[in-house]
C-alpha cells in the first residue's frame, strides 16, 4: 500500500460518499456543490489512472462549465420562487429497490466475470498520453471531433434561444 493507493482509495471514498450524499441531500444548491466534489474526486481518480487529459477536461468542462451553468440554473429558479430550492423525494422505495437491485446485480456480475487474465488487470501509464491524444484528435478522430464541435455550438445556440425566447415572448 503506497501513497498513491491511499490517495486512490481516499478519492474513491470521497466520490462514493459524495454520490451517496447527493442521493440524500434535499437542497438543490448543496446538491450541485456535492456534485462538484464528486466530479473533482473523479478527476483525481483519472489522474491517478494516468488519464491526465480526461482529468483536465473533466475539471474544466464539468467543474468549470457545466456546474456553473447548473448553479446558475439553480439560482435562477430559486430566485423566481423566492425561497431555498428544497426538493421532495418521490418513488423512494421503488427507487431504492431498483437501484439496490441493480447495484447488487452489477456487483454480482463484476465479481463473477473475469474480464482479464491474472496480473493484467493493472493500469499502466502511457508514455506520451497527451501527445497521443492530440494526434489522435487531429487524425484518427478528427471527424467526430469536428462533429462534436458543431454539436456543441448548436446546443449552445439552441440553449440560448430556448432560454432567451422567454423574454421576447414576455415582452
Amino acid at each position, binding site marked *: 500500500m503506497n501513497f498513491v493507493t491511499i490517495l486512490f482509495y481516499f478519492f474513491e471514498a470521497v466520490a462514493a460518499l459524495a454520490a451517496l450524499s447527493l442521493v440524500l441531500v434535499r437542497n438543490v444548491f448543496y446538491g450541485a456543490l456535492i456534485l462538484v466534489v464528486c466530479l473533482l474526486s473523479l478527476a483525481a481518480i483519472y489522474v491517478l489512472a494516468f488519464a491526465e487529459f480526461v482529468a483536465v477536461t473533466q475539471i474544466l*468542462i464539468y467543474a468549470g462549465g457545466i456546474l456553473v*451553468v447548473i448553479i446558475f440554473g439553480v439560482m435562477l429558479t430559486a430566485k423566481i420562487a423566492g425561497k431555498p430550492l428544497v*426538493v421532495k423525494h418521490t*418513488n423512494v422505495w421503488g427507487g431504492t429497490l431498483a437501484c439496490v437491485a441493480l447495484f447488487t446485480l452489477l456487483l454480482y456480475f463484476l465479481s463473477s466475470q473475469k474480464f482479464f487474465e491474472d496480473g493484467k488487470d493493472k*493500469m499502466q501509464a*502511457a508514455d506520451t498520453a497527451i501527445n497521443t491524444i492530440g494526434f489522435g484528435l487531429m487524425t484518427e478522430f478528427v471527424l467526430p471531433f469536428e462533429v462534436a464541435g458543431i454539436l456543441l455550438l448548436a*446546443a449552445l445556440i439552441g440553449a440560448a434561444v430556448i432560454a432567451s425566447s422567454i423574454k421576447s415572448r414576455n415582452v
Partner: protein
Amino acid sequence: MVPVYHFLWLGAFLFCAGLMVIITKRNAIMVLLGIELMLNASNLNLVAFNQLHPAHLSGQMFALFVIIVAVCEAAVGLAIVLRVYQHYQTSVPDEVTDLKD
C-alpha cells in the same frame, strides 16, 4: 497499482446513485445532476478499460465525447428547465403532466 475492479465498483455505485437521484428527486435540476453523475460513472468505466491498454485511445476519446455531449445536454436541459419553470411555475417534472394519457 490500483486494481481495475475498484473503478468498476465505483462506477457501478455512482451509476446507481445517479439513477437513484433521477428517480427520487422531485426537481428537474436535481435530475440533471443525477444524469451527470451517471454519465460520469460511465466515463469512469471507459477510462478504466482504456488504461488497461494504454496503446489505444478509443476509451479516452469516448470519454471526451461523452463529456462534450454532457455539456450539450446540460446546456439544453437547463434551458428547458428554465423554460418549463417560466411556463409552469414549477421545476417539478411530475407536475408537468401535459403528456399524461
